């Protein structure tokens, strides 16, 4: 038996022996290399190594979880956790954990990713390529992420899995207000296209030269996969059943109803090869492909066991981590990996088919005025290119998309046939995404 799984199983046994009715232990071993660069130079190189366990116990409907950071003392910590659980107020919404004889998929991790020791060469390649292609200033981040996690529960979960990936983001400037951003996310070292990524960022930055103040009004938006990562991420997370319960979702009471155009199918797929692939959720239930929106119709919320039972349905195996994050609660249903189903268009065809539009590279600060209605705004950044009669003709700056997210998705009328795995910092959530066009979206600007 593998080491992490074995440790997890032992911690569950300790919890059960101490009196826990339900227990889950997930042991995590991760190491991460990161290189941050700006002004066309490496600023800092970081390395993180962590071995720890997320432990959840329930006693008579009283639940508590902990991030056990010291695995040597973990058994006594778990016993203490069970003791604390007995003193904790009853969790009225708790409905148990995933139960069953689970079978798990086998996965494979690129051995070259695991043994990669000097990723700085990819950064130098990206910087060099961006500079050769017209950039004058280049910044970004390269991550190499390696992790293994073993899980056990008192209700039949017992598994171990791992993943390794690289993600490179490059922002290139050609002028102080002309930039382009490109990313490359891969689970295979040979598919890390650092030079291409640098060149793409630079090419966008060249196109973004000499931007003029953008105008207010309704325009068609042609959006790269990177900016779609923000749109799909913010939207798919509202399919969390907890978000629906709290009133923080524009999808409340909309199962079976149209929430997007028929060109839009959004799937959460942790089973595919990606930087966020998982074979089991954080209750140990085997993950699966969940269709959230099919041909524009809302099909399903995302559930853990408790939300599923409260909603009188079955878990979709989207249980999140058992510890609290910033503004997230233990076990909250989460999106693992968003997929927007590709369409039939080539990106060039979408641009050629657009009379009056904007080509948007990236965005940030997507914020909701009211999550339940979907009223939001976001600030496109990097290359914002004006499309006139099917051609990119110039560049603009200082605009904001101020509209409604449901209306945005209903306005999508073209989706590209090619998809790209994206992830960028705090904005573009991990996903496999195409480019898309949304018609007549509201643009505002500062006075």
């Amino acid at each position, binding site marked *: 038996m593998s080491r992490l799984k074995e440790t997890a199983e032992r911690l569950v046994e300790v919890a059960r022996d101490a009196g826990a009715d339900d227990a889950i232990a997930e042991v995590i071993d991760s190491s991460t290399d990161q290189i941050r660069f*700006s*002004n066309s*130079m*490496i*600023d*800092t*190189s*970081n*390395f*993180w*190594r*962590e*071995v720890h366990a997320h432990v959840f116990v329930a006693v008579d409907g009283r*639940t*508590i979880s*902990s*991030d056990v*950071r*010291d695995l040597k003392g973990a058994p006594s910590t778990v016993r203490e*956790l069970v003791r604390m659980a007995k003193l*904790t*107020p009853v*969790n*009225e*919404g708790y409905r148990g954990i995933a139960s069953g004889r689970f079978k798990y998929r086998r996965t494979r991790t690129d051995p070259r990713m695991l043994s990669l020791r000097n990723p*700085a060469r990819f950064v130098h390649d990206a910087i060099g390529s961006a500079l050769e292609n017209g950039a004058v*200033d280049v*910044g970004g981040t390269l991550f190499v992420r390696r992790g293994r996690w073993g899980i056990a529960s008192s209700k039949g979960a017992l598994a171990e899995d791992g993943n390794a990936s690289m993600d490179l983001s*490059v922002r290139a*400037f050609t002028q102080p207000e002309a930039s382009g951003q490109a990313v490359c996310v891969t689970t295979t070292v040979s598919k890390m296209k650092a030079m291409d990524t640098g060149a793409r960022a630079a090419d966008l930055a060249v196109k973004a030269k000499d931007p003029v103040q953008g105008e207010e009004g309704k325009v068609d938006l042609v959006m790269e996969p990177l900016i779609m990562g923000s749109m799909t991420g913010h939207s798919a997370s509202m399919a969390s059943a907890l978000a629906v319960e*709290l*009133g*923080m979702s524009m999808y409340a009471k909309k199962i079976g109803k149209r929430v997007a155009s028929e060109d839009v199918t959004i799937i959460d797929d942790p089973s595919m090869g990606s930087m966020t692939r998982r074979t089991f959720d954080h209750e140990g239930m085997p993950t699966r492909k969940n269709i959230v929106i099919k041909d524009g119709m809302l099909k399903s919320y995302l559930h853990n066991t408790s939300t599923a039972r409260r909603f009188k349905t079955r878990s979709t195996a989207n249980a999140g981590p058992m*510890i*609290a994050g*910033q*503004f997230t*609660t*233990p*076990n909250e249903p989460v999106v693992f990996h968003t997929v927007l189903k590709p369409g039939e268009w080539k990106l060039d065809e979408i641009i050629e088919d657009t009379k009056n539009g904007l080509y948007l590279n990236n965005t*940030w*600060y997507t914020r*909701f*005025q*009211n999550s*339940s*209605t979907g*009223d*939001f*705004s*976001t*600030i496109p*950044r990097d290359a914002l290119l004006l499309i006139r009669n099917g051609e990119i003709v110039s560049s603009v700056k*200082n605009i*904001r998309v*101020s509209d409604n997210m449901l209306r945005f998705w209903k306005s999508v009328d073209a989706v590209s046939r090619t998809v790209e795995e994206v992830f960028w*910092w*705090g904005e573009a959530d991990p996903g496999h995404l195409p480019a898309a066009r949304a018609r007549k979206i509201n643009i505002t600007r*500062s*006075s």
Partner: protein
Amino acid sequence: MIDEDVAEHMLDLATAKGPLVLAEVRLETSDRRNMTVKQGEVHSVSTSSDAGMNVRIVLDTGIGFASTNSISKSSGAVLVRKALGLAKAGKRKRKVKLSREKAVTADWKVPQKRPLRDVSDEERMSYLNSLDAAVMDSGSKVQGRYFDIADGEVERLLLNSEGTRVRSQVPIIRMFSFNMVSSKGQSEQSFREWGSTGGWERIDGWGAAPALSEEIRVLKDLIDHGKAVKPGSYDLLCGPEVAGIAAHESCGHPMEADRILGREMSQAGKSFVKPDMLGEVIGSKHATVIDDPTVPGSYGYYEYDQEGVRAKPRFLYRKGVINEFLHNRETAGALGSKSNGSSRSEVYSKEPITRMANTFVAPGDQGEDELVQSVRDGVYMKSFTEWNIDDKRYNQKYVSREAYFVKGGRIAGPARGCVLEITTPRFWKSLDGVSDKVEFVAAECGKGDPIQGMEVLTGGPMLRLRGVHLK
């Protein structure tokens, strides 16, 4: 208790390997607790004890940082080897320069009258339930009713190769709430947060229950009676919450020297402020914005930053002039300046970077009533909901949560969904009146890669902006 021998051992290993610009070792232990109550019922309880460390090594060729969640000499040796290798691999053409700072020895802590570790889960639940009851007592339809309290103690030890030795113990507590008020088929959302350093006694000063009760009443009234603002030019009164977000977003962030130098260029972005803009006019004479980590009991409180530099108030904009950047040693070294103690990190596994603490607009000498009476046709935006700003910190948007029309020097009916979308210079140059009372709001500021959520306060007095475009 942190084992100083481990840190000294790591420092010895780092300095024995040859000449370096700086070696720093941080050891950290923490105990944290979290409880959420949803719709009057306990939703989750979690607890965690952590101990970890990092080493940061600065060479001419680059900076290497390595961390792990254990504290031992053997782990420390591995981290030192790793960080040295990473610093060498940077191959920088331009050498890293750090500002020269005095080595210090200090031991500081935030006192607790009622230690957080002595508070039972029953008491936490009782407190959160009292907030839920305050919301329920409003009689309005409220979805969400989600309350999240987190508290803990963090002990840190910082050593560097220049002789600095700083120990600290900081207890910290914050509460976050989300409520969605519905009426007549419409809704308004409310996110609120309170936070302090100190013990459980700090919650008494928050007044969260009456504030939330009032919030629900106001939002219900807003839905039932609020009217949209007809787009046009108005005088705008900004409450302390709006003054605070503007101080943080359109002064604090663009004045962070790491942004100005481009170090955050591919994530949080650059800044419209350039290194040579010190002394340039950005606003009216009323625009003084201070970042001050030394406000006792404040959420962003510290006495020494994470590079061992003494904390002090920073006057970012002073009487409308770009006055002082926020510096850590790296940015100060690059610009030939001195650090003003702005280096912070969320946790031992994240590198310290330039951050704000408690950022606020300085008070003036007018009363709030006086400011209201001075407006003939305007809007009072007391608080905000949606907001954002571009990555150069020049174009910002604030949408009102609680707002009122002001007619003939008096507060009139509620204004709903009022939008201020304005450039940074326009905001600060339109400022022509400031009240004499500052209020603060707690917030988590996100920056860095990986993102580091940092405890801050934002705040200010009531501001009067003349002739701004609202929609």
